[in-house]
């Protein structure tokens, strides 16, 4: 499903109608770091074209679980994942699945903006290049321009695509990283506290961007800010001590949660 041609998605596409269908499904997921049991029995359905927020106190396992969805945990030698995670009903931990291909389908944005020490253009072109998405230079130009437009950065950088990505401001760098992820046309975008290193104005811009990206992508965001979860997400999952405590509609979660621990966390009684 390549949506790169779509820039404004006010017209509902047929797929948007299927907003509630499951995109990512986790069954009995366990994660171990060496002897430490970091994630216990997590079962969750993540819906297509929805923003799902993972909240919970520090060290509760929300980032660890996020990194299971694109198998980034494979790069950590001591980490072991058990259970079943499937995207579109295909188990991503199946030996047949190439984690490198999977990560093209499941993009990721990190806590600290991490643009490559290259030009703005080269940062965005990096993914399309390694996956051979552009046959001609003009195709690549189009992909880069469209990704930067989707990330709301085009107007700010279109005249200086050759200047280094590391020269941008923090908020611009993070949007550049989002553009970089979007350029590969992933189906799912994972965001690991994408605004924790940004000031409130840059944060507002990124949140607005997440809101727009929801039209085309399934987004999972880890956040420490309850307000942010309430603002950007439709579904919220609460983690505590490696367990998934509760997963619910965001509105319900922040007004009338089912679990006492969720209530306590949201009210600021712990965490």
């Amino acid at each position, binding site marked *: 499903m390549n949506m790169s041609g779509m820039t404004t998605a006010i017209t509902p596409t047929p797929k948007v109608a299927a907003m509630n269908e499951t995109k990512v499904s986790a069954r009995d997921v366990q994660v171990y770091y060496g002897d430490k049991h970091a994630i216990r029995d997590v079962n969750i359905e993540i819906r297509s074209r929805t923003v799902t927020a993972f909240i919970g106190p520090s060290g509760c396992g929300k980032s660890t679980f996020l990194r299971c969805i694109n198998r*980034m945990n494979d790069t950590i030698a001591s980490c072991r994942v058990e259970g079943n995670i499937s995207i579109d009903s295909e188990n991503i931990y199946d030996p047949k699945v190439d984690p*490198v291909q999977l990560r093209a389908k499941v993009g990721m944005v990190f806590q600290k903006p991490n643009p490559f020490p290259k030009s703005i253009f080269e940062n965005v072109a*990096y993914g399309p290049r390694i996956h051979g998405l552009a046959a001609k230079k003009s195709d690549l130009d189009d992909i880069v321009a469209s990704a930067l437009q989707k990330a709301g950065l085009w107007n700010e950088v279109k005249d200086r695509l050759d200047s280094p990505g590391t020269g941008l401001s923090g908020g611009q760098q993070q949007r550049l990283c989002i553009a970089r992820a979007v350029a590969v046309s992933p189906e799912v975008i994972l965001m690991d506290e994408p605004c924790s290193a940004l000031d409130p104005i840059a944060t507002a811009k990124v949140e607005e961007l997440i809101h727009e990206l929801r039209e085309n992508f399934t987004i999972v965001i880890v956040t420490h800010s309850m307000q942010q979860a309430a603002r950007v997400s439709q579904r919220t999952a609460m983690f505590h001590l490696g367990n998934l405590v509760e997963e619910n509609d965001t509105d319900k979660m922040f007004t009338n949660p089912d679990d006492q621990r969720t209530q306590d966390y949201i009210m600021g009684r712990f965490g």
Partner: protein
Amino acid sequence: MSVGLIFLVVLVLAAAGYFVGRARALSLSAQSGRKLHSLPSYYGQTVALFIAVPAFFVLIAWLFIQPIVIDSRVNGMVPDSVIPDGGARSLVISDVRRIANGLDAVLSRDAIDESALTDGSIDFSSIRGRLADVGVALVGDVPTEVFEAAKAYRQGAKFGNMMMTVAVLLVAIAFGAWSYTWIRPDMRARNISETFIKALLIASSTVAILTTAGIVGSLVFETINFFKMYPASDFFFSTVWNPQFRGGSDLGIWPLLWGTLYISLIALLVAVPIGLMIAIYLAEYASKAVRSVAKPMIEVLAGIPTIVYGLFALITVGPFLRDYFAQPMGLGSSSSSVLTAGLVMGIMIIPFVSSLSDDIINAVPQSLRDGSYGLGATQSETIKKVILPAALPGVVGAILLAASRAIGETMIVVLGAGAAAKLDLNPFEAMTTVTVKIVSQLTGDTEFASPETLVAFALGLTLFVITLGLNVVALYIVRKYREQYE
């Protein structure tokens, strides 16, 4: 008192000053009821520093100046008449110095009283024999003027040493006492110590800079002397190196420079690819256990003395290349060859490239790797397109360090490539380098007066300029293509 003893005494005084100063600060604070500005130990430190630093400064200055003063005085006592024909004045002066030093041994061996030297109660006409008995051999008999000069030299040195002891100890005590009386509870002893430490650090760095300037200065000075005797155009443009100690030499730098560059190039062609691949493996692929064993083992290569590499080149690599490559291909029959020296030198500098590059690759932030993996890049794509570009400036620096090692290497070349200065493209030919020729021009009978010996300084300066130029060019490249990641 000997210099070592003075040094020790000053140290002991400084230690004593520390405790005295500390105690005074504490007692003054207790008396006046005022709080000390700094911790008590800082007051002690201030007194100790005031005792030690000026005293050592005086000591060092005295050690420099005393010989100059005495030499100039003794010089005036030696008339031109005692200088043998064709001999140099400096040789007579050095005889004076040796006699003066030998006199002490003569006096103590023969149990002669100090006063005998001046009142003439003992005949010193046989002084040459007496000095020979204590191990000071002189070429001819000692003229009276020289002997008198030697006595004066000895007196001067004795007096100077005594004065030095007095001066150093006086300075130590005076500054110590002054700083001691200066102690008040509100004295900023912390800041004074800070200033002293800063001055010490600046002085240390000045030593390094001045040494560099001194080395360059002496090279330039001797090189100018060389070019007064030998035309610069011949040195820089002639392709013949043929020194004759009778004179009429051809001293063209090109055969030597060519040998240096050729051998270094081969060494870098060996070391850079292997070293870089080792670094990438160690930094990106190797497990912690493998890395902790492999890295020190590779670094052992850098610790092997170069003469041992030279032996390896001489008895193993050289004959092997000759028997299996050069002779079958008809390219020569010499076991000393550019290729031998280049290969062995390349192996020697592998750890320079690998170890430094490994550190540099490790310093590339993990977040860049995560970013690349997160976009679906494989490990080798990540290394090629993200990590190596980010590490490039450091890697270039590592390669340059290796290159300057290769250019300056001597032992491996002597044993591996021979000493024949030749301009040739055949890598199986024996050739030689600038450094080897510097050594061979300066070993043996050396009087720095002929172009054949002075050429060594011109060669050294040329080498210095080349390495400096290499560094400047590399710095420029690194600045231009640097990819900033912080």
